[in-house]
C-alpha cells in the first residue's frame, strides 16, 4: 500500500514547481525601531562609567582590605612589641616566660629595622627608691642585651628606669608587687612602619 516511487514523484513535482516561480521583489528596507546612534553612544559612555566605577570600587575595596591588613599587622606588631615582661623578686635575669615574650619581639624587630624601642624598667616598692632605680635599670639593660645579643643594632634601644616610682598596681602584697616588677616598651621611632613588619 505504500509506493515509494509515487512519493518521490510527488516530491519532485513540488520542487520543480517552486523552482519555476518568478523571483519576488526585494522587501523594502525596514524602518529602524532600536536605539539611535546617540543613544548607543550614551549607553557606551554610561557602561564605561559604570565599569570604571566598579573597577574603582573593587580597587578601593582591595586597598581597604590591604589597609585593614596593614593595620591589623601593625596592631599585632604593636601588641607584640608592647607586651610587658615581668621579673622575679630582686632579679634582673630573664625568666623562660620573659624570654619567650622577647623572642616574639625579636621577630618583629628583625623584620622592621626602622623601629626603635625604649625599655622602661620598674621595681616593686620594697627597698629604697635609689636602689630600685638601679634595679629597674638592670632589668631594662637585661632586655636590651637580649636584643643586641641576637645581633640587633644597639643604637635601636634606649633604657630608662623609673624604679618604684610608677607602679601599675597599688598595694603592698605579692600580687601587686609581681605586676610592678616589669619592663615596659615604648616605640620611639618607626611606629608608622609597623604595618610592613612581620607580626
Amino acid at each position, binding site marked *: 500500500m505504500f509506493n515509494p516511487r509515487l512519493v518521490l514523484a510527488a516530491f519532485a513535482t513540488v520542487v520543480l514547481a517552486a523552482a519555476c516561480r518568478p523571483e519576488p521583489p526585494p522587501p523594502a528596507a525596514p524602518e529602524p525601531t532600536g536605539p539611535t546612534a546617540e543613544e548607543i553612544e550614551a549607553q557606551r559612555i554610561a557602561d564605561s562609567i559604570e565599569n570604571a566605577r566598579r573597577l574603582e570600587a573593587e580597587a578601593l575595596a582591595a586597598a581597604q582590605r590591604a589597609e585593614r591588613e596593614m593595620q591589623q599587622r601593625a596592631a599585632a606588631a604593636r601588641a607584640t612589641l608592647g607586651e610587658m615582661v615581668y621579673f622575679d*623578686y*630582686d632579679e634582673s635575669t630573664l625568666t623562660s616566660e620573659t624570654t619567650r615574650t622577647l623572642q616574639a619581639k625579636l621577630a618583629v624587630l628583625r623584620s622592621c629595622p626602622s623601629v626603635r624601642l625604649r625599655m622602661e624598667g620598674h621595681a616593686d616598692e620594697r627597698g*629604697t627608691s*635609689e*636602689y630600685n*632605680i638601679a*634595679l629597674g635599670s638592670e632589668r631594662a639593660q637585661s632586655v636590651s642585651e637580649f636584643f643586641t645579643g641576637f645581633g640587633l643594632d644597639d643604637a635601636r634601644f634606649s633604657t*630608662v628606669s623609673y624604679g618604684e*616610682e610608677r607602679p601599675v598596681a597599688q598595694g603592698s602584697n605579692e600580687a601587686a608587687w609581681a605586676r610592678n616588677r616589669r619592663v615596659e616598651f615604648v616605640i620611639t621611632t618607626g611606629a608608622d612602619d609597623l604595618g610592613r613588619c612581620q607580626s
Partner: protein
Amino acid sequence: MRRPTASSAWTNLHLEWPTPGGFPSRFATARTCLLFLLAAGASSPVAAQENELIPGVELGFIFEGVYVPPIAVKPLTVAGADVGLAREIEGIITRDLDYSDRFQVRDSLPPALGGEGVQYALWEQFGVDWVVTGTIETDGLGGGIAFSVELHDIVFGSLKAAATFPLPARDHPDFRLAVHSVSDALVGWVTGDRGVAATRMLFRMRAFGEENPNLTEIYVVDFDGENLRRLTWDRSTVTSPTWSPDGKRVAYSSFKADMPRIYELNLEDGQERLLVPEGHGQHDSPSYHPDGNSVAFTIVGPEPEGLFTYNIRDGCCLKYLGGGRFNDLQPNFSPDGEWLVFVSTRLRFSTPQVYLRPLAGGDDELLSPFRYGEGGFFTDPDWSPCGDRVAFAGGIGSRRQANRYHILVAKLEAGGNRLLQLTQEGNNEDPSWAPNCRHIVFTGERSYGKGVFIVDTVTGRTRVLVANVEAEDTDWSPWLAENGVVR
C-alpha cells in the same frame, strides 16, 4: 656646776623626757603620768610596735644622763609695738627652746613672776635655772623691729648675756627665720653650742592637689614644722633634693625631660638651670662639694655607670670615679671634701652596703655592719657636718623584709668604727644631719602614720616635723640666719 634638782637624774632620757607643759616633774608619780602623756602626744615616740635590734650594733644614744635645765620665757615687754607681735615672737622662741632638746621649758608662769624686772629669788622658788626676758621696739625703724633679749642665770643670780637683734617686719618673708636665729643665739649663750632653729628641711613627696598619684615634687619646711611650701612644679618625678653649702640653692634630680637630669633651683631669683648638662644615662642623688664648686652624683644606665663628679662652677670636666658592673649609689661628701660615703651593691646585688672612699686614692672601706650570710640592706648615708659621724638607714635581712629600716650612726674612730642604732620602732629612712651635728631629720612610719621626724641623737627624743605625708629624701639645711640677719 649647775644645781641638781630632783628631776635631774635622768638615766634613760629617751623614755623619761619631761613634757614642755610645766608639770612638776620632780614628783615621781607625776613623772609616771608623764610617760602616759608622752605616749599620747604626737611629738614623742608612741607605744612601740615591735622593737628590734640589729646584731653587732649597740642600741643607744651618743650621750646619756645629761642634765637638762629648766628655762622660762617671761612675757616680752612691748615699746610702741602691738602685743600680738610680742606673743608671736614669744611663741616661736619658746617652742624653739623646747625643740632644741637642751631645756625643760616651763610655761603657765604664776602672776607673781610677771612684774617689773627679774626677781631671782622668786624664780629660784619656781624652780628654773634660766629666764629669758626681752623688749620689742618698732618705732622709727621703717617697719623693722628691734628685739632686745636678756638671759638671766637664776642659779648664780646674775645677767648671763644680753644683745639687741634687728628683725624684719612681721609680714616680711624672713621674719620667722630671723626670730629663729635669736632662739639659736639663746641656746648658744647657755650651752656654748648654737641652736639650729634657723634652718629648713627639704624632702620630696606626692604633691598636694595633683591628680597623678605617682608624681613627687620637692617641698621645704621650717625647723618648727611651719611654712610648708612646694618648690618644684615639674609635674614629674623629682627626687633627692640637697642644699647647696650656702643654703641659697637646691639641687635635685627630675624626670621632667626624657631622661632624669640634675637641676639646680636658685632660691633667691627662682631660676632653674640644668646643673650637669653632660653625660649619658640617668643622673641621680647629687651632693655638693663643701666648697660649692662641684657635685658628686650617680649615673645609672649603660656602662660606665657609678659615681661621677662635675665642675659646676666652670661647667665642665665630667669625671668618672669608677663603679663597674655593680651599682655605686648615693654619694655624699665629707665636710672636708676629701672623702665620699656611698652605697654599693658590690658584695651582692641584693645587699647594698655603705662604704667610705678616700678621694685622694686608696681602698674603699666598708662601714655598714655586713655579716656574711645575713647580708643586710644599708642605704641613705649622710656625713655629719662635724666629720666624725655618718648616719645611714638599714637593717639586717634582705630587701624582701620591706619597710623595716632603722637609723644608724657610725662613729668614725681609728681602729674600728662604733655603730649605734637610734630608732627601734616602725620604719626609718633618709637620715640627714643638722648643722649642730646633733639632730637628725628622717622619714618614718609609725603605728599612727607616716611623716617626717626629727630625733635628737643625744637624748633620743623624737618629734614629728610634718605629719601624715609620704615623704622621702630629707636634707637638713645649713644655718640660714644668724643673730637676726638672714643670709
